[in-house]
């Protein structure tokens, strides 16, 4: 009886302290990403996605890393290969979680990567698509700070292009910061980040628009 009890306790404590394979995998993938091992991180997220077929997060991150790492590329063949792959990941995430504002924002980021590469070629069709994406995301999640932040960044970009003042957008950034601070972080591995970027933009925004 004693030994049974002992085993039971052992098993119990073991499972308490041990991570599930999901947590272990996700932590490992984030660590790889942090070390700039993008390919390995994408591959691990892809594997986790293949095991966790009802969780959108691993596919979402696999797509996000491909998108972020394609900015600044000079080779169009590589760019389209990476972004096509990224789109596949996002499509998979979107089929698990429909109308997800975080995924919608990532689709807009994907388009932005194409536009940044060649605005003349991709700008006309994709910028309209982006506006529609942000509009949809904002209507689904009006209080999502990342939606507000990316939408405002996009608007600021086009305002700058047309030589208009970006002053009116500073307050939207501040609003996003407020939303970030209020946000309850309950879901593990959910992409809550963005506060620091918002603060950076806010300070540069104020610098640019201040009279002196």
């Amino acid at each position: 009886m004693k030994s049974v009890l002992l085993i039971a306790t052992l098993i119990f404590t073991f499972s308490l302290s041990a991570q599930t394979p999901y947590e272990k995998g996700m932590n490992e993938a984030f660590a790889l990403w942090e070390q700039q091992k993008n390919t390995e991180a994408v591959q691990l997220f892809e594997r986790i996605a293949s095991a966790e077929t009802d969780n959108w997060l691993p596919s979402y991150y696999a797509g996000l890393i491909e998108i972020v790492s394609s900015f600044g590329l000079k080779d169009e063949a590589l760019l389209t290969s990476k972004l096509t792959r990224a789109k596949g990941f996002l499509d998979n995430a979107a089929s698990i979680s429909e109308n997800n504002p975080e995924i919608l924002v990532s689709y807009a980021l994907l388009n932005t990567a194409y536009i940044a590469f060649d605005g003349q070629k991709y700008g006309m069709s994709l910028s309209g698509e982006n506006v529609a994406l942000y509009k949809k995301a904002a209507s689904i999640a009006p209080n999502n700070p990342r939606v507000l932040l990316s939408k405002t960044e996009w608007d600021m970009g086009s305002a700058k292009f047309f030589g208009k003042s970006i002053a009116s957008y500073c307050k939207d950034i501040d609003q996003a910061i407020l939303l970030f601070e209020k946000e309850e972080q309950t879901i593990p591995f959910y992409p809550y980040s963005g506060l620091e970027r918002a603060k950076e933009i806010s300070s540069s925004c104020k610098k640019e628009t201040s009279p002196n």
Partner: protein
Amino acid sequence: MKTLLFLLITFFSINLFSQSTVSGKVTDSKGLPIMGASVYLEGTYDGTATSEDGLFSFETDEQGEQTLLVSSISFETYSKSSDITNFKNVTIKLKDDVNTLDAVTVNAGTFNAGDNAKVTALKPLDIVTTAGALGDFVGALQTLPGTSNVAEDGRLFVRGGDAEETQIFVDGMRVFTPYSPSANNIPSRGRLSPFLFKGITFSTGGYSAEYGQALSSVLLLNSISEPQEEKTEISIMTVGLGLGNTQKWKKSSLSLNTSYINLAPYQKLYPDNNEWHKPIESVGGEAVYRYKFNNDGLLKVYGAYSSVNFDLTQEDINVADGIRFGLKNRNLYINSSYQDFLEKDWSIATGVSFANDRSEIKYNDADITDIENSAHLKIAFKKFFSSRYKLNFGAEYFVTNFTENYQDTSFENDYEFDNNLFSSFVEADIFFSKKLATKIGIRGEYSELLQEFNLSPRLSLAYKAGANSQFSLAYGEFFQNPKNDYLKYNSDFTAENTTHYIANYQYVKNKQIFRAEAYYKNYGDLVKYDTPFALPTSTYNSNGSGYAKGLDIFWRDNKSIKNTEYWMSYSYLDTEREYQNYLTSATPEFASKHNASLVVKRWIEDWKSQIGLSYNYASGRNYTDPNKGGFLTEQAKSFNSLNANYAYLISPQKILYLSVSNVLGTKNVNGYQYANQTNTDGVFDRRTITPAADRFFFIGFFWTISDNKDDNQLDNL
């Protein structure tokens, strides 16, 4: 305690026994190792990436039947299901992904425009912001090599072919009357508004078996599948007004465009060399309805109505008072298409297009009424056997009914014909590797009018020689029934035909494109007749023949100069024909030996403006001088035109647009007209045919109203 120890040992040993190793090597098709490929068991966390020498090895607790997946960028994903014990020391060869941007494309004869193509000769905005094009997509295409500048006509003349040898298709369906009618010596414009299309494929020869009844060229337009947003667009121009509106619903959308053009005020300000009794007035409306079905199915219905009305007197050397020409035309065009993806990698595309065109023409004292009803029915299937092998086949039926009533003071007659044609085609796209691909097809056509069956084989081959360059070859036979102008008087013809041979070299590197293409075309069974004009009383036969050969060169650079894009085209054409009423084989008057154009666009950030310039050159075209005898032996002077445009973004939604064609006012000559009789000195007098006006000015203000404050009508210009 003993039990515990026993249990622990058992667990441990079970673990030992159940763990297996998956290992092996990943290589490309040549056996060279692939580094960084992802290798894993589907549905598990177990996997790794390959090392520098392509090797991989990982442990797994999985047992029994498993699926091993291997993926790497620019390769096809490999997948194999087997017992886990079989995945030890395996060698996996990944196939090249042939759908990547750096794979070979079968492209001899073809230019792509729009953002749907791998290599775009023209970008979406180019279609409409090319100086001199004046918002007509045909104008932008005329800056590509292979086209001849025929300033007084405005239509597409490709590689020694006349304008009727080019057919236009929207979403795979034929457009029967793509150009607005115009008077002699006044260029006609395309009826289709350019902003309805997102992709354009312009083939100057050797095209797919899916298309027929075009001896020289096909222009394929894809309409927008889904508009991005609801908006209203207002245009105020020196020549008229335009209004557009787009509405979107959950699964469907509707776009409407209307335009009213009246050249009366313009012609008051800048009179040209015609005497206008009724300056050109046109009213047009277009509607596109799109509906998305749950399963990827997409229905598009496009309808367009336009009416054109004008009346003028044009100078003529043989008629002292000039020739009076009046036209009332109305045109209805409906194009509906449906596309869907079916099970097992099949897809279907089907559609119907219909055109009703009625023209009332007044030519001096003659009244002519032409009515043309045409329809095109089509069904096509595609099967994707793999990314390397696709099959496309289908059937089509073309119906044309044409009637003409001719009436003058002394004569009246009716002419009518039915030109119905059944055709079917089958074509395969095969990738042998990432470097070698072919497209091979055959098309059969039966014409009820000519009672004739023709078989046209088509073949293209492309080989990628280096990272940036590729060679392509194409061959094809093309048939086309004689045009309405002859069929209304006679139907005892065989179909006109050509054979194309094309060799192409293309070099694409980082926003630079170089392309050179040589071709040879052999014409047969062209229509001949024995009178100065095609008349009901002429004697007709199909004994004409001809050839065209030449070289087309294209260079586009979007990289070397910041904020500036430019492209250059040069075409060399050597062609002769013996057709129509030609006495001997000669170069037709629409063909010029050398054609060149240069287009430059520069975006000026500080001014929020785009400035565009284009320069067109065409060497002199042939004409007949009866004073010298001979036939089409003389050469007119060359054609030169420098065009400029300027687009200013007042605010993101308001644009001011200015355009001037032939800025320098170069006196161009479209040809000469000789008197029928000699004058008292025994010389045939002549009249120089010049463009109606040397310059054309256009000023427009475009305003977009939508939720999206950045959207504008730049794409309409």
